[in-house]
């Protein structure tokens, strides 16, 4: 096959189009995932914010907390509640970070593949030019080839 730049340009357009389309799909998927994660985080904090007053009230109804009343049971319960919120929030946030990292990694892997395809095509062009050049030399040699 002789060197034909139009063929390589067509291949380049195909690669770019495919990469752009998949990248857009990944970006939209990432957006949805990020949005969903943020909603979950908000729900988690809302849930903890709503449970905290009820927890204090329950200890107050039993007389374990109140004006001039501070019991160790109430303090441990509140500390455990706060620790659980921290742990769950951290786990959720780490999950969101890892999800974001996964999207980023997928995008970069796709970019790597796209770049590699373009590099392969450039290398192929150079090799094709070299083969055509050697064929040209053989033709120029004529009967001496």
């Amino acid at each position, binding site marked *: 096959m002789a060197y034909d730049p139009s063929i390589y340009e067509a291949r380049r357009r195909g690669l770019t189009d495919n990469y752009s389309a998949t990248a857009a799909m990944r970006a939209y998927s990432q957006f949805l995932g990020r949005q969903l994660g943020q909603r979950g985080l908000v729900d988690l*904090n809302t849930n*903890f914010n709503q449970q*905290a007053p009820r927890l*204090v009230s329950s200890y107050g109804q039993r007389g374990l*907390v109140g004006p001039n009343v*501070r019991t160790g049971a*109430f*303090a441990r319960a*509140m*500390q455990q*509640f*706060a*620790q659980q*919120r*921290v*742990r769950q*929030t*951290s*786990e959720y*946030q*780490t999950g*969101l*970070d*890892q999800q*974001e*990292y996964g999207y*980023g*990694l997928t*995008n*970069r*892997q796709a*970019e*790597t593949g796209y*770049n*590699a395809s*373009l*590099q392969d095509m*450039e*290398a192929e*062009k*150079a*090799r*094709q*030019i*070299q083969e*055509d*050049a*050697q064929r*040209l*030399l*053989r*033709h*120029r*040699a*004529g*009967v*001496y*080839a």
Partner: protein
Amino acid sequence: MSFHRSIRPRIQRRTPPVEPIGKVTKKTPSLNVGMPQTIVKDHVNDPAMKFSFKNEADNLDKIATKNAQDVIDALLAGVSGAVRASTGNSNAGTGQSSSNKLAWAKWNDELARRKLEDEQRARGLTGMQDSLANGGYRGNADELLALIAGMDATGQTNINSNYSTGMSNIGAGFDTAQGLTNQGFSKANQYLKDNPNNPYQSFQAQNTPVQNAMSQLLASLGVSNDPVAQQVQAENVASQQSQGAANDLTSLLSANAQRNDASRLSEMQMAQQLGNAGMSTARAGYESNASNVQQRALATLLTQIQGAKFDVEQDVGTRKQTLMDAIIAAGGIIPGAPSTPLLNQPPTMIDVLKRLVNNGANGRMTYAE
């Protein structure tokens, strides 16, 4: 040359007795003018005839003397009759005088005809000798050789021209091919350098630290935040470890991408070198082929030219040999070759007489011996 002029001086010059050699002791018959004796002795003293006389002197003397006696008697009888008729001697018969005149006329005609033939033969022989001496027998051989030499020069010029054209085309083709190859690989290398394939280079995993959202509430309730703060610290440490692991993976992928880029650059350089080496090898092969074709063509041309020259020279040699054979057959000598005197001189009357004498001796000796 008349008979009288050729015979008389010799008769007078050879009149004094000549000592015979060998065993020639027989007394010769007496003649009016003593010719038989002088002729025989002339043969004996002739350097060209000594060899024969030494070996056959006795027989020759016996046979040749008698035959010569008869022949010369007849000739001189006619001469004497003619002399007597011219001087008015009545003793000479009329019939004998007419016969002698007729014989004399025939003899003169014979001598004239022979002289003419000799002259013609001499001219032909001279022509052949001249042709042999000045190379005339070569005919148009030199022109043919010049044409062959011209063909040789033209052929060599064409062959060398084809070789030069072929070498020029190979060199130009190599330069063009090498330029295209280097240009193609240069573009590829430049693209690789301008577009390194390492998307992981700036990619970092995110780490969102958590905080104690209930610190104010706990403080307002008089509850210590210390255990919660410890939990926050532990969770952030754990998330940082997760981030570190992800970044380690990213670093690994980035390093791998860098190695891939370096490998691809090396691959391009090796491909370029391989391509140039292949073209150089092809060029050397093509040039070698061109040289071989040139040598074969020159060798073929040389063979053809030498063959053509050989044919011409062979034809010249054949013609020369034919001419030499013709000269020899005509009694001539080859220019430059040792000659035999008798072959170059027209026969004298004495030689004719010698031949007659020898013919009378049954051909056992000719004047040429």
